[in-house]
């Protein structure tokens, strides 16, 4: 490797560290989580404290209190049809609801999580068996089964919820299994395996922490569900009459609706608050643990500094494209603007190929997207102008831009596969693009698509025309996208790392194709790449970018032979060329030397 490359000049830049906030701190700073959590805790405490608060037992009946109105001394919330204290029954019902919720959710989590971890981590055969068992469980009609099994459960809410927990477990199983399969495919699990970490430890240390978040969220929803089902069963009269529960209270209140409407209202209100809090808490947990979707900043139309337009009125007609002092920024979460392009300028003439070179984060793709007018909505152009054929692209409306994009300025993306719609055939997508950009009739567009496929070197155009994206290789897909891009005979083709995802032999063919098409159609090309070999192969000019600026631009041969900027020199020196062959012999190993110094 070149000796110019000293560690001192080339320290890898550290990423700025964002402050870490634990999930717990995120939860307690979310008002929704705090309020619903507090309500749940207070209500839950009232249950166990019922003997201290309530003046009567839940089943103590007194003839004086039959349908007593609210505010009767000793019966603050009145009495029910059997003369029992409504407040007392309400408080004891909380216990029933809590027990039901905890048992139901607990059983579902224990079964679902165990099976999910096993099914997700181990091979396809074990997974298939577990899958079938859970499919079977899901076919049972839940509520109906619980009613049918009443002779077995004797109406006890705990036994009932034990069974209901099993019915709920497939939901947890599916979540845990999917997350586990995802983690199982992570390279860090492979690395742990290679390090000799045992299966149990991998599950505990690498898989569980990822699984636990979604399960906690789901637990809140499951508890709410279990409480509702228990109440529903009690309302229907399935269950012991001795045990106070919201459902039973609502049922008896229902019968006295016209005599004493509040009997019905109290349990309904408490049940509603309880389950609503659980669901809202679950949502708050999801936001905190899985990260809420970032709220889109409303910038809408790209803002731009007023002076930019004024400064760039006089343009020279000699250039096809001129980017002048382009500045681009994105708003950070705190509202300040982070500049990603700080004054990019370059020109492109007819038939030229410009290489836009730089490392990741240098702004080369952002520059290309600015020319295409494809920046995301929150991007803010803070200055500069982009002149295409004498018109400032930045001052055009979306409608006017659409006429240029795809017709005069075309685009070839980096990932050919993800840029083809998997649900439509290659031909259909090409025809759609051709019709949109040229307004041709359907049969005409099809004819043109077939010609183009042949032109870009696809061996059997008719066959490929009818195929889907997954049926063709990456190199073929890139040829298809190039065919689509040149369909309207664009004046500028912008190719964003068009060969990075491809093998070198395919890359060479694609570059040959681009070169031939350029000669044939006379279009200019902007090639965004990090590969100097690709630049040397196809570009006539290049612009080297670093952190949002063009540090050096010029004729390819000149820049390669005598780079002016030290960054360009450093990059060119980092390239491994033919002379970089390892010459020292294999290390002569003795047993002792095979140690990193301790």
């Amino acid at each position, binding site marked *: 490797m070149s000796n110019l490359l000293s560690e001192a000049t080339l320290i890898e830049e550290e*990423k700025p560290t964002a402050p870490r906030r634990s999930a717990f701190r995120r939860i307690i700073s979310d008002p929704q989580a705090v309020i619903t959590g507090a309500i749940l805790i207070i209500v839950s405490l009232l249950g166990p404290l019922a003997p201290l608060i309530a003046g009567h037992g839940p089943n103590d009946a007194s003839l004086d209190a039959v349908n007593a109105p609210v505010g009767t001394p000793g019966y603050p919330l009145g009495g029910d049809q059997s003369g029992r204290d409504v407040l007392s029954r309400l408080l004891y019902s909380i216990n029933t609801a809590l027990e039901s919720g905890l048992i139901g959710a607990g059983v579902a989590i224990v079964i679902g999580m165990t099976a999910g971890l096993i099914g997700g981590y181990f091979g396809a055969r074990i997974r298939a068996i577990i899958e079938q068992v859970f499919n079977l469980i899901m076919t049972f009609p839940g509520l109906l089964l619980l009613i049918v099994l009443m002779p077995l459960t004797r109406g006890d809410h705990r036994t009932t919820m034990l069974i209901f927990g099993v019915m709920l477990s497939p939901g947890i199983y599916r979540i845990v299994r999917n997350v586990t399969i995802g983690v199982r495919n992570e390279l860090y699990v492979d690395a742990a395996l290679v390090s000799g*970490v045992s299966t149990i430890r991998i599950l505990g240390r690498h898989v569980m922490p990822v699984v636990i978040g979604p399960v906690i969220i789901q637990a809140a929803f499951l508890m709410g569900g279990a409480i509702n089902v228990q109440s529903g069963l009690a309302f229907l009269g399935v269950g012991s009459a001795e045990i106070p529960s919201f459902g039973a209270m609502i049922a008896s209140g229902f019968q006295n609706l016209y005599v004493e409407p509040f009997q019905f209202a109290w349990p309904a209100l408490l049940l509603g608050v309880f389950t609503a809090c659980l669901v809202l808490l679950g949502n708050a947990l999801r936001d905190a643990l899985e990260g809420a979707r970032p709220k889109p900043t409303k910038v809408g139309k790209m803002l731009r500094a007023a002076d930019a337009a004024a400064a760039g009125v006089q343009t020279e007609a000699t250039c096809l494209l001129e980017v002048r002092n382009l500045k681009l920024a994105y708003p950070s979460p705190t509202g300040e603007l982070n500049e990603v392009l700080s004054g990019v300028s370059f020109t492109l003439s007819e038939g030229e190929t410009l290489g836009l070179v730089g490392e990741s984060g240098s702004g080369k793709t952002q520059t290309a997207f600015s020319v295409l007018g494809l920046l995301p909505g929150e991007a803010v152009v803070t200055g500069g102008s982009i002149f295409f054929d004498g018109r400032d692209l930045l001052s055009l409306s979306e409608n006017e831009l659409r006429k240029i994009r795809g017709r005069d300025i075309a685009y070839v993306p980096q990932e050919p596969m993800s840029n083809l719609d998997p649900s439509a055939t290659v031909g259909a997508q090409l025809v759609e693009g051709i019709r949109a950009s040229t307004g041709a009739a359907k049969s005409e567009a099809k004819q043109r698509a077939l010609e183009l496929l042949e032109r870009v070197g696809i061996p059997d155009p008719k066959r490929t025309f009818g195929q889907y994206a997954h049926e063709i290789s990456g190199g073929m897909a890139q040829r298809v996208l190039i065919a689509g891009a040149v369909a309207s005979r664009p004046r500028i083709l912008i190719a964003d790392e068009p060969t990075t995802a491809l093998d070198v032999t395919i890359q060479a063919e694609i570059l040959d194709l681009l070169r031939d098409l350029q000669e044939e159609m006379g279009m200019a090309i902007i090639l965004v790449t990090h590969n100097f070999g690709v630049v040397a192969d196809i570009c006539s000019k290049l612009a080297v970018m670093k952190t949002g600026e063009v540090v050096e631009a010029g004729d390819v041969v000149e820049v390669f032979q005598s780079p002016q900027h030290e960054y360009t020199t450093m990059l060119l020196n980092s390239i491994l060329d033919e002379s970089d*062959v*390892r010459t020292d012999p294999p290390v002569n190993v003795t047993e002792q030397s095979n140690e990193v110094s301790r």
Partner: protein
Amino acid sequence: MTNPLLEIEDLRVTFPGKGFRAKPHEVLHGASLTIDQGEVLGLVGESGSGKTTIGRAVLGLVKPSGGTIRFRGEDITHASSARRRQLAREIQVVFQDPYSSLNPALTIGDILSEPLIIQGYTKNDARQRVKTLLDHVGLPKDAAERIPKEFSGGQRQRVAIARALAPSPKLIVCDEPVSALDLSTQALVLKLLVDIQRETGAAYLFISHDLGVVRHISHRVTVISKGDLVETGPAAQVTSEPEHPYTQRLLLAAPVADPLMQEKRRAERKRLIEAQRQQDEQAGAVA
């Protein structure tokens, strides 16, 4: 020193076909190679050639359907999981993707001490060793308390290299360790890998699609194409005067970073492809 460190003979790997009753397909059709102690063997191939599969078979992450893998004379083709855990001390790995190969939830210190604690280090000893390792791969001392998110791609790859070095292995499988990195970072990480190799004498099975990278780090180079090893030899010879038509095409397809030389190379490549096509036609006509 008569026995090679790693000896792979007629290795075959078959993956089950996708879909119901789909035919299984073989991705390696009998690959044989050896790596001596202290040697770097470069394994070059394009995507889908089976190069990564060879590495994963050595690591025990895929089960071969045929052939043998011998490590220091011992057949480890179907080693038990208990034996595999012992082998972790001797065979290690650096993966391609420094983003997915480090658990995002753990600190660098935890990531590095995990293999050590498995090997029976006490917590204190492990902490000491982690410090040495971080120093060795050129990371700051306070890195141990930080999480992967706080590091750049190149730095993460240094962490992955430190993890591989932790148990002082005899063989490190490097699966495209620099291809996800920027050009300048790639050069630095490669330099680190060469330095470490010289110091520790660990042998590398260095898997890459990039002839330039392989040429720079390997003593010998093997070229793989569509599940077959087509050519093996000294690095300088295979990467500059290859004999096999496929390697010749591969070499000429990689563009050189010099516009004038690249123009010549492009012409050379077209001549070669034309010549090979004519040869194929003649062979076809004879047959």
